[in-house]
């Protein structure tokens, strides 16, 4: 057996790239004379050479004195009679990697001024000699390094002289002798030495290449094709050792091309293929190293294309597939390696692709080997593979070693050999190979954003697991993938997966998965043969009856047997209810739920509908249907209980509707409740039963708007039922009637009353009644009260009412408010109560009164001069009229009960007793009431005077009276020294004299001089001064009297009084001419009415009384 095991491992190993080929080729340097075990100095030197980052690509090797170098083959000066036995020798690579150094360095401890200089020199020389002898015939260079204690002294004559001596005695040229002071700076010296060594190495390998090249002209194409390949390969490799990658690549490529020229027959197919694989490996690796990934890929593609169909022995065709698979795997590895080195890969070109292909060929290999090898039951004797482990050439058959293809094979040995290999192949666990390849591929596809391809690979992996009878693993892989496939609804594929998954679940007696998958399989979208569906349906029923389900008759007998054995214990003990989560699954049972209303009042029953559709081809009967409803605090389950008319048996395509009703929980008022899930249980709990749990959430179709047009054949249009999984619990809807009676708009300042009347239209009496006025955000301009006066009432204000109200009776109360601002007010009224029933739930009714508030009227003022002209300035001591105008703004007529004015000093009234003359009058919208007061200001003031407080007491008809007070504002008040009064009769009579007096008052403490004159007028004759100058003493009055004799009737201009300041006037306060003119304008009438002459002589009337009129507006 062990023999077979050995062969088996070699057989498998032969597919791999040999280690020698894999390792990075390093120049080989032999060290002699270093005792790294006992000599500390030597040890430290050795380590500084080896343990360094970025050391030169050199492999240092200690060469013991007894070291045997490989013997040199005799130089052949003609290849005429030489027929190569193979392409690549197995040992050649190793020779250059491990055995033949490019240079040998002999270390020797010797200082220049060593006391025993001569003796040591001789010993050193002998060492060199023996080394030379050992390497007789090799052009490997020998160097000597003297390990010294002292640092070298520059220009040291002794050193120079002794160095020469040493060289001559060792027969070395001076370039071959070095010193290495091991004190400090050791590192520096080693680095310098190393670079020197590496140069020698490169030279050496360069020469080797030259030598190999020299053979070329001896070769001829027909008998030495192998050698062409071999030599090019060697040159490639030597160049690698030399670290000349470009040349290396060049030679490998040549080698590869030469190889392709070799005629391939069954007998050499393996060898050529093997070597081709090696060279291709080298080329690709180099191309990646030279960062030419595209070339690498195309090289590989070409490589495969060339050898894909070179099958070799039909009996061993699996070898070919194994090789192909290996080629892909290896390339995948190289590629992946390069990516790790920083090469960017893309979605459509990454290592995974090659691993996947490798897996494919691994499968072909498996199939081939099953066909060819399954019948081989015994390993042939004697071992035809004898010597397999020590073949001279790569890729040759042990039973025909080193034979050139020309020679005819010995059929019997060949047959045995083949049989032996077939036997070995049969021992191999292909599935594990395939699965691991899939594994690497999957990992890669994951990286390169290919979820779906990855999924597909996982499925293939699952298939392989299934083939290797690992049903459990297959099931896990399949079920994991299912969820992803479900999302994209590729039912053809899903069906395919389900079929396998169900089978696996069956074979592993996994009751949970089996049932869940079965319900899915029975769905209409799953494309399985009706027979299969029926079997699965029946199996479901069997399971519910605790009977072992039937296996798929397509399955081999033994497999079914083992499955049945697995099932037996499942029904042994009592099974707890099997819970199946159907939320992610499109099964043969579909469920939709909806609350019948978006919100339910606390005293109503919450009711919801459950729709269930079965798309199962066969009838299904359920035990119970229930829904789980989540509220904020708890989640509770409600079952469909009244099944009077509806049975729980569903036939194919049947849709049924169920109602569920339940009392809401008062804690949920103003909260949302949600249908969490729907549970359908099937089977008898006593026997075996399953509970299918469906999600209460809607599975939204792509476009409900389009689904809307779908025409359903059934009375219930299941597809267009909109799932409503959320509803809210709201307070009970109040059935009382609330009325507000009032007369809007409210007037600013008035006490406004609103009658609130409540009629109980509930079916029973109510108690704990409460009527509240709730505050608005900013209601500071409104005062509320329950009585017609206003204190400091805080909101919410509770209106005084009875707390109970019997059925269909009415109560009323009043709300009073006073607004101080004209705007639209919202008044919120909240009525809470309990119905006086066995279930006294709180009821709330919220009402809003929208109340516009307007100004009752506006007050404006005008000011008049003595001449009834509007003025914009007062003069101290001169009377003026204050005219208040009240314009009604309210739609309701307003009765003015009383008005009064309080003058503010220095303004005072001219009249002794003031009384309102508009009191008692009523004005409606846009009407104006006005009255006039005579006032005078004592003092001047250069800012606008506040005239007085005007107070209006008013009410709307049959309203409560309200006092509105406004401050009247006037103008500046000037002062001039002179005041002027005129006394005229109201009218004159033609040819009847009238007297006019002009009073000049000097209000100042200075003398006033004035020129006074009277202009002539054709309307009058008059007597009195026509022209004079007058001096008015301080605080005294001068009176000028004129007798006028009217000549014309009608309104005639009086003769004009002219006052002017004399030019030469020196005294007197500043009194300007313009002031004088204005004074005359505002105090002296221009006209007088002269009546025609009368019979007799009528008495003259007094001066005009003050006016009292209500001005009606025009229009």
């Amino acid at each position, binding site marked *: 057996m062990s023999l077979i095991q050995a062969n088996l491992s070699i057989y498998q190993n032969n597919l791999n790239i040999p280690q020698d080929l894999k390792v990075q080729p390093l120049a080989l340097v032999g060290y002699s004379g270093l005792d790294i075990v006992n000599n500390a100095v030597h040890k430290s030197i050795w380590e500084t050479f080896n343990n360094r980052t970025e050391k030169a690509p050199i492999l240092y090797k200690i060469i013991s004195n007894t070291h045997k170098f490989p013997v040199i083959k005799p130089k052949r000066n003609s290849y005429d009679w030489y027929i190569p036995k193979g392409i690549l020798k197995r040992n050649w690579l190793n020779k250059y990697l491990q055995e033949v150094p490019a240079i040998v360095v002999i270390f020797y401890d010797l200082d220049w001024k060593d006391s025993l200089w001569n003796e040591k020199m001789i010993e050193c020389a002998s060492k060199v000699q023996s080394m030379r002898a050992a390497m007789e015939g090799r052009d490997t260079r020998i160097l000597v390094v003297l390990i010294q204690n002292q640092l070298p002294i520059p220009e040291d004559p002794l050193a120079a002289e002794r160095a020469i001596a040493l060289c001559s005695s060792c027969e070395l040229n001076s370039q071959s002798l070095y010193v290495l002071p091991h004190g400090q700076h050791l590192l520096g010296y080693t680095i310098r030495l190393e670079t020197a060594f590496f140069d020698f190495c490169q030279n050496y390998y360069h020469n080797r290449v030259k030598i190999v090249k020299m053979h070329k002209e001896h070769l001829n194409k027909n008998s030495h094709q192998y050698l062409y390949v071999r030599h090019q390969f060697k040159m490639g490799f030597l160049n690698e050792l030399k670290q000349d990658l470009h040349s290396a690549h060049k030679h490998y490529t040549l080698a590869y091309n030469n190889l392709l020229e070799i005629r391939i027959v069954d007998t050499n197919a393996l060898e050529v293929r093997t070597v081709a694989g090696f060279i291709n490996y080298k080329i690709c690796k180099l191309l990646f190293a030279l960062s030419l990934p595209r070339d690498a890929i195309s090289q590989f593609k070409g490589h495969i294309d060339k050898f894909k169909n070179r099958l070799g022995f039909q009996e061993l065709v699996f070898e070919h597939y194994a090789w192909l698979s290996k080629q892909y795997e290896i390339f995948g590895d190289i590629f992946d390696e390069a990516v790790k080195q920083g090469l960017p890969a893309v979605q459509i070109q990454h290592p995974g692709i090659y691993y996947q292909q490798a897996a494919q060929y691994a499968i072909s290999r498996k199939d081939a080997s099953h066909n060819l090898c399954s019948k081989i039951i015994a390993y042939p004797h004697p071992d035809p593979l004898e010597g397999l482990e020590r073949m001279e050439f790569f890729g040759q058959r042990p039973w025909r070693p080193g034979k050139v293809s020309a020679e005819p094979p010995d059929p019997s040995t060949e047959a045995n050999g083949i049989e032996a290999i077939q036997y070995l192949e049969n021992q191999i666990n292909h599935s594990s190979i395939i699965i691991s390849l899939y594994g690497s591929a999957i990992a890669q596809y994951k990286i390169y954003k290919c979820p779906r391809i990855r999924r597909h690979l996982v499925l293939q992996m699952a298939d392989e697991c299934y083939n290797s009878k690992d049903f459990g693993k297959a099931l896990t892989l399949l079920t994991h993938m299912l969820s992803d496939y479900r999302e994209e609804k590729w039912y053809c594929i899903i069906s395919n997966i389900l079929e396998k998954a169900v089978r696996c679940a069956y074979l592993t007696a996994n009751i949970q998965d089996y049932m869940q998958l079965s319900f899915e399989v029975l769905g209409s979208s799953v494309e399985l043969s009706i027979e299969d569906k029926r079997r699965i349906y029946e199996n479901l029923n069997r399971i519910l009856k605790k009977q072992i389900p039937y296996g798929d008759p397509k399955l081999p007998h033994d497999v079914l047997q083992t499955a049945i054995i697995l099932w037996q214990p499942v029904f042994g003990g009592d099974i707890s209810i099997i819970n199946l989560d159907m939320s992610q699954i499109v099964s043969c049972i579909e469920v939709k739920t909806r609350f019948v209303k978006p919100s339910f009042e606390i005293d109503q029953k919450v009711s919801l509908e459950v729709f269930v559709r079965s798309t199962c081809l066969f009838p299904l009967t359920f035990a119970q249907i229930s829904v789980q409803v989540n509220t904020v605090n708890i989640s509770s389950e409600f079952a469909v209980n009244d099944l009077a008319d509806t049975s729980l048996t569903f036939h194919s395509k049947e849709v049924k509707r169920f109602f569920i009703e339940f009392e809401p929980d008062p804690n949920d008022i103003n909260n949302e409740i949600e249908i969490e899930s729907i549970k359908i249980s099937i089977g008898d709990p006593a026997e075996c039963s399953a509970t299918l749990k469906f999600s209460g959430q809607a599975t939204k179709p792509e476009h409900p708007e389009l689904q*809307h*047009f*779908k*025409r359903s*054949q059934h009375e219930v249009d299941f597809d267009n039922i909109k799932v409503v999984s959320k509803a809210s619990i709201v307070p009970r809807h109040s059935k009382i009637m609330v009325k507000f009676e009032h007369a809007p708009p409210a007037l600013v300042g008035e006490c406004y009353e609103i009658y609130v009347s409540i009629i109980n239209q509930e079916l029973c009496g109510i108690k704990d009644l409460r009527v509240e006025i709730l505050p608005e955000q900013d209601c500071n301009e409104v005062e509320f009260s329950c009585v017609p006066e206003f204190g400091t009432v805080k909101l919410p204000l509770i209106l005084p009412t009875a707390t109970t109200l019997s059925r269909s009776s009415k109560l009323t109360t009043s709300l009073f408010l006073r607004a101080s601002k004209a705007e639209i007010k919202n008044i919120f009224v909240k009525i809470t109560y309990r119905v006086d029933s066995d279930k006294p739930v709180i009821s709330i009714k919220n009402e809003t009164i929208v109340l516009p508030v307007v100004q009752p009227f506006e007050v404006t003022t005008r000011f008049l001069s003595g001449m009834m002209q509007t003025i914009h300035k007062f003069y101290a001591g001169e009377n003026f009229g204050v005219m208040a105008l009240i314009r009604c703004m309210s739609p309701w007529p307003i009765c003015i009960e009383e008005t009064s004015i309080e003058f503010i000093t220095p303004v005072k009234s001219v009249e002794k007793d003031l009384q309102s003359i508009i009191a008692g009058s009523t004005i409606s919208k846009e009407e104006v009431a006005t009255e006039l007061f005579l006032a005078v200001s004592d003092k001047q003031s250069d800012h606008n005077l506040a005239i007085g407080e005007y107070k209006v007491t008013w009410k709307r008809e049959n309203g409560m009276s309200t006092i509105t007070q406004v401050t009247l504002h006037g103008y500046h008040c000037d002062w001039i020294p002179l005041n002027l009064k005129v006394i005229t009769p109201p009218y004159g009579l033609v040819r009847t004299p009238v007297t006019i007096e002009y009073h000049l008052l000097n209000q100042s403490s200075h003398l006033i001089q004035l020129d006074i004159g009277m202009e002539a007028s054709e309307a009058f004759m008059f007597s009195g001064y026509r022209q004079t100058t007058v001096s008015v003493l301080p605080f005294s009055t001068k009176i000028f009297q004129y007798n006028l004799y009217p000549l014309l009737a009608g309104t005639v201009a009086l003769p004009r009084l002219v006052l002017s300041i004399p030019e030469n006037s020196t005294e007197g306060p500043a009194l300007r001419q313009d002031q004088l003119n204005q004074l005359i304008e505002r105090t002296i009438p221009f006209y007088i009415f002269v009546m025609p002459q009368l019979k007799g002589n009528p008495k003259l009337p007094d001066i005009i009384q003050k006016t009292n009129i209500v001005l009606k507006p025009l229009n």
Partner: protein
Amino acid sequence: MSRSTRFDTKKVNSELVNLTYGTLVAQMVKDLDNPDDVSKQLDRIGYNIGIRLIEDFLSKTGTARCLDLKDTADKIQTAFRLYLGVQPNVVNWSPAGDEFSFILDSNPLTELVELPENLKQLKYSNVICGAIRGALEMVQLDVQSWIVQDQLKGDQNTEIRVKFIRRLEDAMPAGED
């Protein structure tokens, strides 16, 4: 393919009409379970369209009153070209000359329509019959119109039959609706 492709608005418009009409039919089919009711509805809708369309037709073509049924047929033929962009043949006159058919070798209305199995008896194009009836009623012609052949049913062309009933007195038509 520049983004500023102006569409052939005529074409788009007819597609729009066909699609909208199609969706309307789908809606009806959903509302009324019986296909025959749908056909009736379509005819009624056609009628409503017809009684309004006639004004547009008269103003567009400025045609005078029809002399006889032959003339009417020709005018309707023009209407087909004007509104549906197809030119039907007027054939199969009854011996009495009071009945004839329009033959459409392609019916734009049904071009892209495929009737589901359970709707085979639906008269999809009834709207045309209705329109003819409605339009003629406005010019005091009382006719019947129905579909004889239908490409939707696999016939190789669509035939719409028109039968003259009577001439109405000049009066406001008893507008059905």
